[in-house]
Structure formats: structure tokens, C-alpha cells
């Protein structure tokens, strides 16, 4: 595994990548906030938050695989097992992409093992904080990749291989943004073709019969580099009603702190 980055920090490889764990550690306040702690936490809880982050730093071994694909290649992956919702927002975005990159990222097995162990010893609070910290870190790892697909230089190896992309480079702000099976109408079964294409087994990822990745604390999907306005999704699709995530309106304009300030 290598860091896969050129001197300017852009991705330049399809080989497995090692992500520096410090780059993706969330801050203690975010972890506590994600657990519903509003305002200052009492000392005992704040200490546990810091302990969870220290554990995460020592146990996580974030790794990723990423591969640029053409529009046709992506359409084949996206079609999956034919179970996607229709209409869905993703199919309205990717035809305007100037870059498409399949990706999978994981924190590795050890974090999950530690969470289980903490619950076994009744250390529920620390286990739960570590779980939350790891979820945030996995998302930040995906954002780390996204940031390296950033416009304006379009340096990611996500250039189309054959298959012309409609839209091309629009004369407006270009923004890479990730989409994952299981969200926004892309059926979870899409993982099957995504895995077949990307082979994330190279970084220790497995897929079960429910198309669930293990170890948990992994993220997969596609990074679509497209005009920023194209990413703005109104949560008005039928399936949006049962979605508890609802980050579609905010995430198109934001990125976790410390990740890719250079990005659009």
C-alpha cells in the first residue's frame, strides 16, 4: 500500500491507498455532539470522549481503493441488480459529471473488535463513543478521498475511459460529491457490482448476502465530479420520507473541517 498522492496531494493511483489516521480523526466535540450532547459535557463524559479518540487513533488503519470509470462503466455498476428506485436523484446528476470514481474505504477490523469488547465488559459509554467516533472517521475518510478529487485541477484518475461524458466542464463551480448504495434511491444491492468492479477485498472488505460490508465502519460508492448546482437535491422523492439521514441539502455545500479546504 502507498499514499497514492502526488506532490500536490492529488490521487494518482488505483492501488490500495493508506490514509493517514490523523487526517480523519474527528474532534471530541463532534463525537459528543453526534451522541446528542449539547452544551458542555461533564468531565467524566468529556474524558471518555478523549479516550475514545485515543483508542480510535491507535486501532484504526484506514485504507481505500478508488478507480476512475467512464460513464458507460458507471452506468453498468449503478444499474446493479435492477432494484434502484426510479426516478432517483443520482441518475439526474452523473450524466453531467466530468469525473466518476468508484471508491471504498474502511477503518479496518480492530476498531469494531474493540467496540464489541467494550460492550462485553460493560464499558457501554466508551464503546458507544468509540462507535460514534469511528462512524464519523469513516465518513471523514470518504471525504478525504473526495477532497482529493477536487476541482479545479481535476487531478483524480476519474477521467472517462471511453464513453463520452455529456456536459463536460461547465463554466461554473465544479464539485466532487460522493453517493453510496443504500441512499438516494441507489439500492443496496448495487454493492454487488461495485465490489465486482473495484475489488475492495484488497483492503479487507467483504460483502455479505444482504450486501452489507464488513468490517462495519466502511463506506463505498461513487464520487461524482459535477457542477455544484447539479448536486443540490430536493428531498422530494418517495423514498425520502423514510430517510433519517437527510443530509442531502447540506452536504452538497459542506465538507468536514480540515478536509480539503482547497476543494470547491
Amino acid at each position, binding site marked *: 500500500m502507498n499514499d497514492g498522492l502526488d506532490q500536490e496531494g492529488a490521487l494518482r493511483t488505483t492501488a490500495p491507498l493508506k490514509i493517514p489516521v490523523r487526517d480523519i480523526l474527528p474532534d471530541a466535540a463532534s463525537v459528543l455532539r453526534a451522541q446528542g450532547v*449539547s452544551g458542555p459535557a*461533564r468531565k467524566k463524559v468529556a474524558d471518555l470522549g478523549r479516550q475514545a479518540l485515543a483508542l480510535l487513533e491507535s486501532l484504526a488503519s484506514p485504507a481505500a481503493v478508488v478507480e476512475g470509470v467512464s460513464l458507460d462503466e458507471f452506468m453498468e455498476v449503478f444499474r446493479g441488480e435492477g432494484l434502484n428506485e426510479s426516478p432517483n436523484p443520482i441518475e439526474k446528476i452523473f450524466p453531467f459529471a466530468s469525473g466518476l470514481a468508484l471508491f471504498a474505504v474502511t477503518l479496518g477490523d480492530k476498531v469494531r473488535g474493540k467496540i464489541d469488547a467494550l460492550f462485553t465488559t460493560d464499558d457501554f*459509554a466508551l464503546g458507544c463513543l468509540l462507535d460514534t467516533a469511528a462512524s464519523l472517521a469513516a465518513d471523514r475518510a470518504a471525504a478525504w478521498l473526495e477532497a482529493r478529487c477536487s476541482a479545479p485541477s481535476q487531478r483524480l484518475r476519474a477521467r472517462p475511459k471511453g464513453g463520452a461524458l455529456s456536459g463536460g466542464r461547465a463554466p461554473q463551480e465544479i464539485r466532487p460529491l460522493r453517493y453510496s448504495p443504500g441512499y438516494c434511491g441507489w439500492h443496496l444491492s448495487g454493492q454487488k457490482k461495485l465490489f465486482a468492479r473495484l475489488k475492495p477485498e484488497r483492503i479487507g472488505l467483504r460483502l455479505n448476502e*444482504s450486501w452489507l460490508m464488513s468490517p462495519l465502519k466502511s463506506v463505498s460508492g461513487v464520487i461524482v465530479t459535477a457542477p455544484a448546482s447539479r448536486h443540490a437535491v430536493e428531498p422530494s422523492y418517495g423514498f425520502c420520507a423514510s430517510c433519517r439521514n437527510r443530509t442531502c441539502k447540506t452536504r452538497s455545500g459542506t465538507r468536514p473541517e480540515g478536509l480539503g479546504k482547497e476543494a470547491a
Partner: protein
Amino acid sequence: MIYDDIARRLQEGDEDQVPRLVSQALAHGLAPEEVLEKGLIAGMNAVGVKFREREVFLPDVLLAAKAMHAGISVLKPKLAQEGLPARGKVVIGTVQGDLHDIGKNLVAIMLKGAGFEVVDLGKDVPPERFAEAAEKEGAAFVGLSALLTTTMPVMAKVVEALRSRGLGGKVKVMVGGAPVTQDYAREIGADLYAFDAASAVERAQALARG
């Protein structure tokens, strides 16, 4: 009063003082089931109320739960001699194909804190195993968790497995998890839907009270 001390220390998540006070209460000849009810469960109930009212947060509840477990470990031998005060037995697990178990763990912890006996089957549990355990354990409830739309249908299979053992209606089914809704619970014939761990406990308590 020692019960108040136990409840207060438990709310603070003091895992050292709670078992010490429980030992002290037993040494003074107090009945173990009263120590459980008026000390430990009273403390957890107070934490539950504060959590609902956002005066405390999830980590505080979990610290209290750890202190509660420490207290129960002292009480357990005595309670075993006299028989556990039954608020009901719950068989719980994450359904087959799903490996997400944090939510299920939280529900199990909070149900235990409310005085239920919990049989945790873990994750990736086949439908028949839920039915088998419910029958064997004489469970009042079966709690099912799923975090994926692709594993939700397994919940319906558990309901069916319970029916085919003649347990339909006798063993109540509670469902929860991110994609699960009240409508879905109704659709598959589940008795209860819980939005989160706190509501799971409230609903179980309400049903146990009749």
C-alpha cells in the same frame, strides 16, 4: 436513606460506590428485591426521565447502566436465591443478514436497567432462532433490530416463525432500527414499534403493566 444514596450515585455513574452501597444495604438486612427496586431501578428510571427531558445525554445513561450492572452483580446471588422479580423476559437480537448491533445493545442495556431480564441473541440471528429462544425462555417480548432495508423483511419472517410455533399474540414483538417505521411494524403484524432505546423501554413497560 441508603436507597436514595444508591439511586443518586447510580445517576452519577459511580461504578465504585454503587456496588459498595448495595453491599452495605444487604449487610443491614435490607431485602434484595427492595434494593433493586428502590435503589437501582429507581436510579435508572430517574436517569431515563432526565434523558427524555434532555437534562442528561446518552453517555450519562450508559455510565449509569454500568454502575447499575456493578450493583446487580452484588445483588445477583441473593436474587437468584429468592427468584428474580419478574418484569418480563425479553429475547432480543439483530436480524439475519444485519451486523449493526449498537442500537440493539442500547435497547438491551436500557431494558435491563428497567428491570427486564434480557436474553441477547446477538447479531445476524435467523428467524427460527428467535422463535426457539422465545419458546425456551418463556419470553414476554421479542425485540428485533434492523438497520438495512434489505434485512427488514426478516422481521416479518420472525413474526411468522413465532406464529408457526403457536406463540403469535402470546409473545409480543417489538421492532426498531433506522429504516423501520410504525407503518412497517403494523404491516408485518408486530405489536410494538420503538423509535429509539428510550421509547423501547417506555413501550415495554407500558405493555408489561397491561
